[in-house]
């Protein structure tokens, strides 16, 4: 009996050595020996911190313009506020893919960009209802609420509200101050201890920096897909369209923001700064582990898909809310093109880099 077992053991060992003869020994799977610290420092120094700085500065500029507007309420000041609003809203798209750690603690996303805004609640506040920005229902603050206040009606209305309705400026400043304080706290955390720890939190386990970057990239992409275009286009709602649900419906910025967010997502994948300088990124990491999708490099597949999606978005007519009504099929085509990428970001990239999609939590044991 035991002879048989020893024989079995021996043959297994033999098999093992045969199998190793064919190549040059095992390599680390998932590129465990990739220089992750360098990767993370590029993300922190070239993307995360500069993008949050940009965002915070743009919010400050918006806030200053609001001060001027409330001091001397004229048409010119209002135009300036609207312009600063557009700039800041675009900058938001560049930090939207980094909503973990301090941003998560600050509830930055819901403070800045939960849409569509709750019109009834906004009207209720304007009519004198209570507003505590920190405790609000979350669909009456951030850019979507400002979009309503600044663009829903004409300039006359805004100026007269500013002059006649004290609640209007309390509300407007309440919104911007919350955004300012929370973006500032987030930025400070990244400049301080959180940013330092992020650099050295290597590996691919849940909670590691790599896992956070990949999970958030993929989560943000899914948000772009469903919130910015899927829901309003009717593709998720039996083709009943909801044009009023687009992002920035009153300022008509929807397409610009969609374009901006896709570009930000692409740059985040590449490890490219907003200004375009290329550093180490997830794209290069995929190349390093020689990740393939069919015959093609996974990196190329993903980059090509980003470009296709961006082209589709560029081909849409402004404003998105009207195009949804008049030329639904063009919007649906764009939606489908954007959807193609989800599987690459959500399944392929995490698998080959050994990162589990952690926003899918395991509430039990596994075996």
């Amino acid at each position, binding site marked *: 009996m035991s002879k048989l077992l020893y024989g079995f053991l021996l043959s*297994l060992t033999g098999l093992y050595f045969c199998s190793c003869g064919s190549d040059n020994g095992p390599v680390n799977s998932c590129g465990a020996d990739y220089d992750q610290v360098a990767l993370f420092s590029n993300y922190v120094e070239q993307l995360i911190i500069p993008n949050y700085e940009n965002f915070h500065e743009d919010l400050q500029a918006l806030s200053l313009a609001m001060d001027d507007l409330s001091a001397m309420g004229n048409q010119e000041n209002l135009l300036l506020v609207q312009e600063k609003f557009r700039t800041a809203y675009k900058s938001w798209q560049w930090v939207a893919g980094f909503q973990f750690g301090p941003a998560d603690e600050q509830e930055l996303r819901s403070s800045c960009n939960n849409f569509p805004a709750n019109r009834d609640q906004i009207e209720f506040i304007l009519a004198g209802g209570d507003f505590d920005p920190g405790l609000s229902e979350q669909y009456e603050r951030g850019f979507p609420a400002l979009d309503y206040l600044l663009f829903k009606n004409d300039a006359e209305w805004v100026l007269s509200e500013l002059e006649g309705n004290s609640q209007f400026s309390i509300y407007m400043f309440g919104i911007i101050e919350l955004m300012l304080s929370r973006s500032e706290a987030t930025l400070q955390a990244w400049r301080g201890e959180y940013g330092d720890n992020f650099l050295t939190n290597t590996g691919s386990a849940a909670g590691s920096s790599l896992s956070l970057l990949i999970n958030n990239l993929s989560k943000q992409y899914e948000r772009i897909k469903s919130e910015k275009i899927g829901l309003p286009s009717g593709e998720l709602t039996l083709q009943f369209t909801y044009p009023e649900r687009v992002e920035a419906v009153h300022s008509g910025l929807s397409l610009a923001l969609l374009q901006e967010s896709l570009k930000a997502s692409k740059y985040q994948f590449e490890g490219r700064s907003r200004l375009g300088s290329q550093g180490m990124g997830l794209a290069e990491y995929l190349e390093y582990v020689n990740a393939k999708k069919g015959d093609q490099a996974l990196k190329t597949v993903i980059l090509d898909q980003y470009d296709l999606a961006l082209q589709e978005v560029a081909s849409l007519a402004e404003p998105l809310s009207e195009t949804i009504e008049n030329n639904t099929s063009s919007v649906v085509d764009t939606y489908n093109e954007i959807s193609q990428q989800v599987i690459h970001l959500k399944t392929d990239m995490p698998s080959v880099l050994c990162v589990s999609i952690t926003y*899918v939590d395991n509430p*039990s044991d596994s075996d």
Partner: protein
Amino acid sequence: MWTTLATAIRREVGIAPLITFRICFGALMLLACVRFVFEGWIEELYIKPGFFFKYYGFEWVTVLSPVGMYGLLSLIGIFSVMIMLGLFYRLAAIGFFFSFCYLELIDASNYLNHYYLVCIFSFMLIFLPANASFSLDVLRKPEIRLYRIPQWMTGALMAQLAIVYSFAGLAKLSPDWLFHARPLSIWFAERSQMPLIGPLLSWPYSAYIASWFAAIYDCSIACWLLIPSTRKVAYVFVLVFHLLTWLFFNIGLFPLIMILSTLVFFPAPYHECFLSKIGFRGTAGRLPRQCIVPGKYIAVIFACLLFVQTLMPLRHLLYPGSCLWTEEGYRFSWRVMLVEKSGHATFRVSDKAQGRHTEIRNNQYLTDFQEKQMSIQPDFILQFAHRIAEEYRTKHGMSDPIVRVDAFVSLNGRSSRRLIDPKVNLAKERASLYPKSWILARDKTSEL
């Protein structure tokens, strides 16, 4: 040989191993219940979800109200204590078996091999006279006391354990496991930052060594445990192996279950040595009479059970393709820690008469955990497709909803492949145990 085997299994042995088994089983299950409740898993797994995945043939098992669920868990806990103490033992074992099975049958996405093992063990305990010594029942009714039992009683437990190990081992003899160290290398890489052992885990050879060790261990440990001269060393390996898996992986009570139940391989004197310290008395005595059915029939029941148990893990041979990919014949086969899978499934419903279509947001129906399980298991994909069809038939007035899915799965660190034929109307496919023609084969050309 058969006659020696027949005499061997009829030989009388001390009852002590069975007593240890009963006490450990009861205690462990009590621990499992307490843990389940305090981790908040009742809430997470049974109260939060609005939809539950069913086992084929057990569609009638439904979730209970929150109070009912806590009640069920309490009941299981109480039965565990009764088994542990040997109080109204037969009733407790029957109660445990049915209540535990009910719990497991509620949602198939919670399937775990060790829960299945618990079901089997509790079924066997119903027929075993595990309360015939060192139990409150013996205090109540001294006449049921037994000192010796036929060897086949503990032998059946050993055989069941041998089946678990051997099939777990057989399943590991695959190219992915042996020659690519997948999925272990993936999991090791994920854990490369663990204190102390992290650097060891990131050494590229460790995943290979561990894979081969685990394969050899699983394939042969039952033999080493059976052979008297290697038994003690083998048990040290049992301890090391399961403690390591417990340390590395989130596998809950499985290591403990295996560590404690393999004690049954040790003959009575070892057990008596330990049990006597807590008041057990066992010397010469008589054979069991007090069973629900006479001993011979129990032996037949166990023989059937073990026969089925040897066939179940082999049923995947009846299905085309790799069962790691199709999951046909995957459950109840001791394929433990064998794959790392992730997937993404996008469902679309349309209706010719209405002329409308829509994409489904899975998270409106499923918890994140359920969605994760569903996206990699074809039978769940089908169940969910039927759920959607039902919803759109009743709530959105579709007379003949067509449900299609774009499902992609990534297996053991490969890039993803399509799992399900995207052209097939899943609403029209029936759930069955026949091979599912709408599962796409995984082409072999681009392996790791």
